[in-house]
């Protein structure tokens, strides 16, 4: 493996040197401090305006992307909403559940069999919360963590997401700020989800459930 290591370091210097030559300057001629300051400031750019209320917009965008949306007033009603969804879609009573704080707070009806674990290919329903949702594009933002396996967002056929409406933000930039506020740095995975999995690879016609969930169901609370 020594051979690879030398090629790799060699290539690194070569590439960087070629870039410097192409730009006609040395690296010490760059104001690194200014570039780092730009990163630290992470300036926002153009943020498209919209008229609808954020909640309206979120629902409309999600539904346009073939996700389904249910609304409840309080966390106490989430259990029944989940039961409803499972019954309506003939999905039995078993769900794989992320262990995030919000879902832990919910008192689940005894009819549901919730399993807190990493999902397997055969699991058909997964349920998670989200860090926030973005009104502009109708997008849920999920992050990985101790009790939050990323595969739960992709393996089961049905993905149910519980989202308190006070976690709705306007734009992706606001979502980044939310994440920065958490103060834990960049999680291993940040998944922006804007609808069920789909493909148009067969004759440019959309089919749902290509690899990820065929159905995305969002339960808005509040």
């Amino acid at each position, binding site marked *: 493996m020594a051979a690879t290591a030398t090629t790799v370091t060699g290539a690194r210097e070569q590439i*960087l040197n070629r870039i410097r030559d192409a730009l006609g300057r040395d690296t010490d001629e760059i104001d690194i401090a200014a*570039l780092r300051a730009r990163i630290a400031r*992470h300036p*926002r*750019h153009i943020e498209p305006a919209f008229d609808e209320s954020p909640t309206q917009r979120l629902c409309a965008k999600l539904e346009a992307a073939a996700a389904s949306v249910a609304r409840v007033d309080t966390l106490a009603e989430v259990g029944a909403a989940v039961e409803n969804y499972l019954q309506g879609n003939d999905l039995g009573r078993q769900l794989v559940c992320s262990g995030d704080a919000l879902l832990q707070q919910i008192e689940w009806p005894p009819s549901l069999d919730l399993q807190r674990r990493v999902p397997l290919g055969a699991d058909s329903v997964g349920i998670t919360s989200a860090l926030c949702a973005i009104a502009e594009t109708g997008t849920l933002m999920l992050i*990985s963590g101790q009790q939050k396996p990323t*595969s739960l967002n992709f393996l089961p056929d049905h993905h149910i997401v519980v989202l308190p409406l006070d976690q709705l933000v306007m734009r992706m930039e606001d979502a980044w700020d939310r994440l920065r506020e958490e103060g834990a740095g960049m999680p291993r995975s940040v*998944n922006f989800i*804007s609808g069920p999995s789909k493909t148009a690879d067969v*004759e440019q016609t959309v089919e749902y459930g290509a690899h990820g969930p065929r159905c995305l169901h969002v339960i808005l609370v509040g």
Partner: protein
Amino acid sequence: MHPRSKFFEANATQALRQPSLQAALKQLEQGFVAGRAACYEALPEFEALRDRAEEVLNHTLENLDAYLLEYEARVIETGGQVHWASTADEARRIVVDICNQAGAGNVIRGKSMIGEEVGINDALEKAGFEVTETDLGEYILQLAEEPPSHIVAPAIHKTKDEISDLFHSRHRELGYHERLTERSALVAEARQVLREKFQQADVGITGANFLIAETGSNVIVTNEGNGDLSSTLPRVQIVTAAIDKVVPTLEDASLLLRLLGRSATGQEITAYTTFTTGPRRQTDADGPAEYHVVILDNHRSEMLAGELRPMLRCIRCGACMNHCPVYGRVGGHAYGWIYPGPMGSVLTPVMLGLDEAGHLPNACSLNGRCATVCPVKIPLPQLLRTLRGRQHRRRLNSRTARMGLSIWAWIALRPRLYQSITRLAMSIMALLGRRQGRFRRMPLAGGWTRVRDLPAPQGSTFQAQWRQRRQQ
């Protein structure tokens, strides 16, 4: 893939005679083109976004070495490894080495143009690994043993019938015996087959739409979710990306994401946009134990030096080919390599050489539609002209073409002479063509008149008419 760009003319002729390809290309207009147009209409800020994107990417390119180093430092801090590759060959070797070291047997791939550019599948298969493409389009092509014909919709040229046959013959060994004809059934069968591959895979190789200097993240944009499974389930993740994919911050990526989906498929945002950073943390419930990034140059630093620099802004949306009248007739395979259409006509000659790909910069009417829709305002026609100039100077075009161009240039630089010659030519042609109003045959224009008539001119030149109108 073995390049066939030299045979552009023959490839194109063949493509024009394929009814199924022609039907697929027509659909492009109703699909991606109409989709982008609708997005454009719906977003008054579209032009402002394009301007800003151009600015941000120019700033990044001007400081490319520094941003790459920032990015590298963040990847290492988060527990990942960065490998640099000057050439496609180096990139292949690095990827094979990582797979060897991981003791891998099965490798899965999420769709990535860099993977195609360096020919990763071939290298891995030669080294004894089983490689499976997981993007449905790429998977279809892997079964068919064909290269992609579009950078966003790789299997756009395949009909449902062809896919039915392909699955029927190739999935039989896996225990699927029925020949499926429903689109949804085909997608479901591929999902099932690929699910198993995902579970067995030791290594997942993905591309990157962007690399973020601020956080050391790579961004993958998909609708299927295959890129996400590829970067979550296997024990080792490899990201292959080129030096021009880095952007400074998460906000810069957000800016470009607003343009990418809209320009590519007419989507405001794709179903999945995923930012992955390093290997799984101690506190993570899943994710790969190893995270590698292979950063590839492959002639990009060369482009950075000269007039072709704007090409490095490309975010691979495919809008230029969707809107290209040439691509729209001949499809992607005619271009003979993995990058087709206007962007490919710039990239392929740089990466493979003008000797191989000299036809491509000329396969363009300079109508400019590509530059009008390019979300990062790459002046593609101008770049193609630059390449034509290089070709001319390096005497790579045909002797007749060179001579013709030199004579024309000599005359064009002498306006008086130019005007009298064109005036004379126009009156002669008007006289000769007066009866029919058109020419069936014309010396020096055989290529044109073989397939269509040349309309006869009315008698006076454009310049003369212009002058006359100005006087009125």
